[in-house]
């Protein structure tokens, strides 16, 4: 017989593990991955693969050669970051830029702090915002969605995102009504084309310009339901986030529908769904108590709308989540879970 083992209680452990959580998230992203491949074809595959491989490589290399700690490369978190980074960039992004993004995500935003669990900011978003600011040109020229089975060969036509187009046109002094009805004249490769913001059904399904993973609200919601059922995420952040966006944009829309577009548009366009379900829910960089999570979601929603409506950027989701990430420690400090026996109740 071997030597007996002594340890503190408890002596049994539940079957939950980091790996199960992370691969659960990967699994939940499969619908969105499929949609992105459907609309962007091989480009999507390329960006996804490079991003995932680069993220995992940097994590491995830094752990092995710089930190010299245990290797945790197969726990799946680098893969999640990789996929989410790819989800947040246009499908035609040059390879070297993706690699820089992966390096920033993993090297600067995650491993500098000690790896999984220690980063105060969402790594994929840090990578994305870093790229957005560094390479605004490349990061804002979106390939037009081109369904795989539509019979056309893929060409390098780029188009705007509905949000970007709307914002640009509004700044140019047009009204919402006008933009939606008449579309925008654009010069693409010297030719004049008319761009029209797609209708809501198309937007829901993902047939619009945008980052790889953000386009299809339906696919993202399917993944989110899966994660909710598996209890990988909780409902607080998504509900508070979506709710505050709807309420805030709703109020603006009621004030003047000519300047402010309706809440539905805000919901289905841009990276809102991706952010709400996959990025604002990253447990590492968000508050822990249910109350704190509600506050977090609320803050994200408000900042998102402020940036979308008044800021320089057409899209505010990434910034909003990052800014609220910074608030997370304070929220954790301020909103504690309710303790048993805290209040006398007889």
């Amino acid at each position, binding site marked *: 017989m071997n*030597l*007996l*083992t*002594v*340890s503190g209680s408890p002596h049994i452990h539940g079957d939950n593990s980091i790996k199960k959580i992370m691969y659960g998230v990967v699994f939940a992203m499969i619908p969105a991955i499929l949609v992105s491949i459907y609309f962007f074809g091989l480009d999507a595959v390329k960006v996804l693969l490079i991003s995932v491989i680069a993220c995992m490589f940097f994590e491995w290399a830094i752990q092995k050669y710089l930190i010299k700690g245990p290797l945790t490369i197969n726990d799946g978190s680098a893969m999640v970051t990789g996929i989410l980074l790819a989800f947040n960039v246009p499908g035609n992004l040059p390879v070297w830029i993706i690699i820089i993004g992966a390096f920033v995500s993993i090297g600067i935003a995650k491993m500098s702090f000690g790896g999984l669990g220690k980063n105060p900011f969402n790594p994929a978003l840090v990578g994305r915002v870093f790229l957005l600011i560094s390479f605004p040109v490349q990061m804002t020229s979106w390939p037009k969605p081109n369904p795989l089975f539509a019979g056309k060969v893929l060409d390098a036509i780029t188009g705007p995102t509905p949000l970007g187009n709307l914002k640009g046109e509004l700044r140019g002094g047009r009204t919402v009504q006008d933009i939606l009805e008449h579309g925008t004249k654009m010069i693409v490769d010297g030719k004049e084309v008319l761009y029209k913001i797609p209708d809501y059904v198309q937007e829901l399904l993902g047939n619009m310009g945008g980052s790889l993973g953000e386009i299809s609200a339906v696919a993202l919601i399917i993944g989110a339901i899966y994660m909710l059922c598996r209890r990988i995420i909780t409902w607080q952040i998504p509900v508070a986030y979506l709710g505050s966006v709807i309420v805030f944009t709703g109020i603006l829309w009621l004030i003047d529908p000519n300047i402010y577009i309706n809440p539905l548009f805000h919901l289905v366009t841009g990276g809102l769904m991706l952010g709400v379900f996959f990025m604002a829910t990253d447990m590492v960089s968000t508050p822990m108590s249910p109350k704190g999570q509600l506050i977090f979601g609320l803050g994200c929603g408000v900042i998102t709308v402020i940036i979308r409506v008044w800021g320089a950027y057409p899209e505010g989701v990434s910034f909003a989540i990052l800014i609220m990430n910074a608030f997370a420690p304070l929220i954790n400090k301020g909103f504690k879970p309710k303790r048993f026996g805290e209040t006398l109740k007889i």
Partner: protein
Amino acid sequence: MNDVVIYAVISLSAIGIAAAVILFFIAKKFKVIEDPKIDIVEEVLPSANCGGCGFPGCRNFAEALVNKSNKDKNIEGLNCPVGGNKVMSKVAEILGLEAEEKEPMVAVLCCSGSKANAPKKVNYDGPATCVFVNNLYAGENGCPYGCLGLGDCVVACKFDAMYMDKETGLPVIIEEKCVACGACVEACPRNIIELRNVGKKSKRIFVSCINEEKGGVARKNCKVACIGCGKCFKVCKFDAITMKNNLAYIDYEKCKLCRKCVEECPTGAIHELNFPPKKPKPEKVMEKQKTETVSTEAKVVDNKPEKDLNTGG
């Protein structure tokens, strides 16, 4: 000289003087006195901020020194172990006092339960710190008094004066570096480390065991345990050894370093440090004596002839 220069001179001087005057009067009116000696004393202290003096930091210690010297005209009981007598006499000089001479001390490890002497009986699975294990059970070697070998003391030492010997599984104190701050004594949950006087030429004799179990039980866990047989007690001519709870203790203030007890001890629980080897008998050659590591030479102990040990209960 043109207008600009004149204006410049006038207005700047005005501002300057206004500031000076206002400040002067305000300073006078709102004066708060702080003893300037504190700063001077603080400068002398080693600023290791180790807490060895019992205060959170050197600054607090300086304050305490100044306050005590102002109040009691002495600084008895206050000592900086890091700076030692040199610093304390300097402080005393600043404060116009005589510092008490403290005998230099050094930490010693009173346990020889190395992997060889006290083999492992169970596995421990959990965070590797001594406090944990001490709260949980007796430890891997089963001795409820012995060193747990997880190195809380080493972590506590701010002066790199300790390290864990992988082979013996015991911490080792590097005497040259030890400043007797007592951090390790504090850290050890089992009170195994003791501060003792350095002694003449660093020679020391001490019982390297604190097991209070009866001999038989103690020996079951560890070959070199003190079994409380009292032989050393009998042989000591200077009353330096006391017996209590099946355990011998050597008072360093009384011990004359005669080494009688060392030979007498049947288990080899009494250790001598920094004595020249007696007679170069082949088995007794110190096989592993690094210049800086002086501790429980497991090998030496092992070479002692086994004696009948049924003395205990």
